[in-house]
């Protein structure tokens, strides 16, 4: 087991190096001269140009630039945003909690609804319910997420007026950031003394549409995977044994089948993280959600290269690490791999 863990971690290193190279290389392909971009007219003066080039570290050979980039990154320095002049890492962590909160809620939504739906579809195989559910799931992951978000806004915010159109919190309330998670921060005693539970409900109502939009594709995938995993398990010999022992239908499915069916689902949920990030980029744009997705898109449009580079590197690294964690979790959950 220990060997397995070390092996996975060891495997991580070349991948991380590769990611950093790719991030670095991608941005270096920028057409045009970044020095000139920054200087504009002043760049006509050779001395000013040379100085700026030196300041930006672009006078060094490319491989040298990469080493600097990689070592800086390993120490947590991802450069400075051209637009805001603040360190990329700081900008990132300012906005990350918003995306994380949204992502976690979306994933919970997908799991809590997706798994039971998948189980029911498997148990009632080939019934109308099954076809309906699987058809719905197909629809779910055929939808463009950015359109779905807009449709949700159209129905629930514009037509019905139930939820706000955008943002994370009503401008009426100021919430002191503590954990960075609105659902927690709005429940602190200071906030409740001042405004009661109103900020909490506001946070919730802002959260609900983007979370549903973001969670729809994972929900569709999880429901499908649960169904097929469950079907496979229900055909196994030990289910026949369970019935022969006189176990109730409920116990056979909920205890014996489910425990085994969920094992591959663990892997799927981990993979959904990548889907969440993808969704974040598009969903945050639509809902004006102050997370890293919206920030990245804005930076791309503004050609803020340190941000793009740093952001991409960070996200890719997170995903790779999460994949390793998922592999480890799978090994723990699957008894056949222990010992």
């Amino acid at each position, binding site marked *: 087991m220990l060997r397995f863990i070390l092996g996975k971690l060891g495997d991580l290193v070349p991948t991380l190096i590769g990611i950093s190279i790719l991030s670095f290389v991608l941005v270096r392909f920028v057409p045009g001269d970044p020095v000139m971009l920054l200087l504009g007219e002043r760049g006509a003066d050779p001395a000013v140009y040379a100085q700026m080039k030196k300041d930006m570290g672009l006078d060094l050979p490319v491989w040298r630039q990469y080493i600097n980039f990689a070592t800086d990154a390993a120490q947590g320095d991802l450069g400075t945003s051209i637009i805001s002049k603040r360190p990329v890492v700081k900008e990132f962590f300012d906005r990350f909690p918003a995306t994380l909160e949204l992502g976690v809620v979306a994933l919970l939504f997908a799991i809590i609804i997706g798994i039971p739906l998948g189980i029911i579809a498997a148990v009632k195989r080939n019934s109308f319910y099954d076809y309906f559910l699987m058809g719905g799931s197909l629809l779910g992951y055929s939808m463009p997420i950015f*359109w779905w978000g807009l449709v949700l806004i159209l129905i629930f915010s514009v037509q019905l007026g139930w939820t706000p159109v955008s943002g994370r919190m009503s401008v009426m309330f100021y919430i002191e950031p503590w954990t960075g998670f609105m659902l927690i921060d709005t429940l602190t005693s200071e906030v409740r003394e001042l405004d009661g539970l109103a900020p909490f409900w506001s946070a919730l109502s802002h959260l609900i549409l983007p979370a549903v939009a973001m969670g729809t594709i994972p929900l569709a995938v999880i429901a499908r995977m649960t169904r097929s995993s469950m079907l496979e398990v229900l055909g196994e010999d030990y289910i026949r044994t369970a019935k022969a022992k006189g176990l109730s239908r409920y116990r056979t499915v909920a205890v014996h089948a489910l425990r085994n069916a969920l094992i591959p689902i663990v892997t799927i949920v981990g993979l959904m993280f990548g889907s969440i990030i993808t969704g974040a980029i598009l969903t945050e744009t639509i809902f004006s959600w102050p997370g890293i997705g919206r920030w990245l898109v804005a930076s791309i449009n503004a050609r803020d290269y340190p941000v793009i580079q740093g952001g991409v590197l960070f996200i890719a690294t997170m995903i790779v690490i999460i994949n390793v964690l998922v592999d480890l979790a799978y090994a723990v959950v699957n008894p056949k791999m222990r010992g």
Partner: protein
Amino acid sequence: MSEVAMTPIQDEHVPDSFLREFWNHFKPNKGAVVGLALIIAFVIIAILAPLLAPYDPTLLQDNALRLPPIWAEAGTWSYPLGTDDVGRDILSRLIHGARISMGIGFAVVILSLSMGLFLGIFAGYYGGKVDRLIMRFIDIVMAFPSILLAITVVSVMGPGISNAIIAVAIVAVPNFTRIVRASVMAERKKQYVMASKTFGASDLRIMFNEILPNCLAPLIVQATLGFSDGILNAAALGFLGLGAQPPTPEWGTMLADSRPFIESSPWMVTLPGLCILFSVLGFNLFGDGLRDALDPRLKK
């Protein structure tokens, strides 16, 4: 008149031609047939776009700003699906959008399939260092969420349809590579490969003439699903302003343009999205049906 009832001798089941057996498995899957119908419909619309569209999709008509579609009160038959904020006919734009989306999907699949095929065959056939190198590269590319990678590539290369196609194709390569590699690895151990080697066939010849035809089934399924991913990703890029640029009537770009009018002219938002939905749905339904029809066939 005597009728001799002849009971034909029940032979062993003679297998039909591949196509007929395939169709027998495929037909009962109604979803898949619907998917195929959708695909054919969109392809026809794409090909005949200039003939089908009543107006030029970029024609600005100041006198017909933001007209609602035919089912609303103010709708007219001259503009059955309404007009947008600068007076362009939405139906015509959607029809031309089909041409663009189908074209993008096609280009993406061709590009990513060839690249993935190439990488996958070499990785699967040679194994060892070549395999590890290629798979490491694939793992790295897969560490980037598809949109993120596409966005980064496009942001670097500049926005536009061709760059969007390249970006989306790059993102799709790993899936093809993995599938081809898995198939090749399974086939490589089989007898006919050994036999070919003893006849002195070169590696390349074995790879492409012998192994490849046996890997086609999962590849075709992935190509179909790659089409739907391609359309979605390209539309996402268009939505973010990084793909097809206005006034090109790409569905994603149309969605982005319509955002400010979500309250006043909601059809501008719903219609392009529905087009994306149905085209992607068509490919997904068909791809699923293909997968089901081809799999048991392979096991026989």
